[in-house]
């Protein structure tokens, strides 16, 4: 089954520190077997939250706030999409995560994909095109954590917006997430991993769904978000973070 992997932030990632060669090597090695089996669908790094924005929708109005927003570990620094037979196997695989990452204190969250309303995930975040790429993450709420199913009209609007965005070429991918109840976290402390089962109490740290859009600048991504029919938009917040391009991550 396809699951999403969120690599939580740390001081380095929030400072914009790029992965150093040994870490790049170790990560590559860790993912290599999976990639060789075609079980890695995506792997993206997110730029520091100081460069990001949050858009809060309230009473039909959108308020844009600049980052940084939270403690480093509350921020998501990387998103991967991988295929695993089940969450337990995924957690075991995560225990072998390179200990170089976050200097032995990495935290990785894995969540089941699947929009509670049944809308399918789609696309490829690395699809080529002009301009920059942004992750638009819908922050979770109590309702979302209860696997609340949005009304049919909302789902229909979302399906329609997804299709139109893909056709136009600026919407690269999108995935809905199940609540953190079926999720897990693997937290490394001094290089030693510990598996923690969901649900996770700090709802404001959680993501309910994410989209990957292409835009010339963050203004374009904000405009897209303002026009998108997010479920529960009366009180929704999205976080918009630019994705690293490979040249930025691996280049000198």
């Amino acid at each position, binding site marked *: 089954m396809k699951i999403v992997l969120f690599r939580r932030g740390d001081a380095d990632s929030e400072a914009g520190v790029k992965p150093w060669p040994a870490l*790049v*090597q170790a990560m*590559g*090695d860790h*993912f*290599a*077997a999976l*990639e*060789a*089996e*075609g079980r*890695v669908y*995506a*792997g993206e790094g997110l730029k520091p939250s100081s460069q990001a924005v949050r858009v809060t929708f309230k009473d039909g109005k959108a308020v844009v706030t600049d980052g940084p927003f939270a403690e480093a570990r509350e921020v998501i620094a990387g998103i991967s999409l991988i295929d695993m037979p089940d969450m337990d196997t995924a957690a075991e695989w995560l225990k072998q995560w390179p200990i170089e990452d976050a200097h032995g204190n990495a935290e990785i969250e894995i969540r089941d994909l699947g929009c509670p309303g049944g809308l399918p995930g789609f696309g*490829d975040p*690395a699809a*080529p095109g002009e301009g920059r790429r942004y992750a638009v993450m819908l922050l979770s709420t109590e309702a979302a954590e209860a696997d609340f199913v949005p009304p049919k009209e909302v789902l229909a609007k979302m399906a329609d917006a997804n299709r139109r965005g893909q056709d136009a070429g600026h919407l690269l991918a999108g995935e809905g997430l199940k609540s953190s109840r079926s999720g897990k976290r693997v937290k490394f402390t001094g290089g030693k991993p510990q598996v923690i089962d969901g649900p996770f109490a700090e709802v404001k740290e959680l993501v309910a769904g994410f989209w990957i859009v292409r835009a010339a600048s963050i203004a374009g991504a904000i405009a897209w978000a303002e026009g998108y029919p997010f479920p529960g938009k009366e009180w929704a917040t999205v976080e918009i973070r630019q994705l690293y391009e*490979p*040249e930025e991550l*691996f*280049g*000198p």
Partner: protein
Amino acid sequence: MEAPRIIAALVRVLRDVGTAEELAQDALVAALEQWPRDGVPDKPGAWLMTTARNRAIDRIRHRVLVEKKHEAISHDLDDVYDEQEARMFAALDDDIGDDLLRLVFTACHPVLSPEAQVALTLRLLGGLSTDEIARAFLLPEATIAQRIVRAKRALADPAVVYEVPRGEDLQARLAAVLRVVYLVFNEGYAATAGGDWMRPALCDEALRLGRVLAGLMPLESEVHGLVALMELQASRASARTAADGTPILLLEQDRSRWDRLLIQRGLAALATAERLGGAAGPYALQAALAACHARAARPEDTDWNRIHALYQVLLRQTPSPVIELNRAVALSMAQGPAAALEVVDRLKDDPALSGYHLLPSVRGDLLSKLGRHDEAAAEFHRAAAMTRNDRERDLLNERATAAEKLIARPGTGQGSE
């Protein structure tokens, strides 16, 4: 089979299917070479993936280097001929320069054949496509593609170390780099007017590479020497060929068509080479020779004594009958035909020059100046028979005829009817 999955994973990072395919292929080739030697790994798929991915990351690094930093550096280099500035550059903790230098020395690594070094240099440093390189060297694209593939494979050997060489090693490796650059220049320089535009563009490419190298290694005399040589030679490009494409000898060229800017830069580069190392290396010496001609506004103004002295120095380094012959020509201009004839007579029986038409041609010229017209005519006939160039043959036949006319008049060989 793993290949499509590896390619797909690489495309995600490289955003380019062609390159992804190429690197996946390279990984498979590496496996075919290493696994029989080292044993098949426990997870062959993961091994292939890791190998391919490492190359992909290297490729990205090189891509960024060549595209972004390269432009910045070569723009800054337009006049790095001030030694003060050169020392400052050297002292800078310039890791951009280091990476680029490493790239240069990698492309010219001794494990590669000279042809492979040239192809890889043009590809990695010049950013030329396989097609462009092929057209420049008048070879099939597949040949160049294979050269580059094999070169990459050879470089992928773990025994190959990627770093800028030091000390004695540096001098030897630098010589290879300079040789490659000059090879590229000559390939373009030899291509006369007409034909593919790519060939003359090679001169520009070689010049650019030379200047970048001079900026990266500003204290190396021979690098400046090579740049000087290329600039001085390139300065004559517009005067070298007649409208119909036939080559014009240097002493007969219209000097108003010589590029003054290139001459200025070439002389400045030569001065830098001299300040740094006495300009005693082969490139600097050849540049000094070219400079003698460049400084003369008219052929009559040429400092032949200096040219002769330079040939003597050059001969001590690279003894060669052809260079000795050139020295004789310079000697005849500086001291008269008799002294020069002595030198040429000693070369007469050198087997290395047996098919070289310029030997009898020069000898004929000297004999003619000494009034020995019967011998001169015989030499011109001999030379005409040796040359494959129609225009040259005509010229030599004309000189033979002219000499014979002078034999027919007995005595001093002067006067006419």
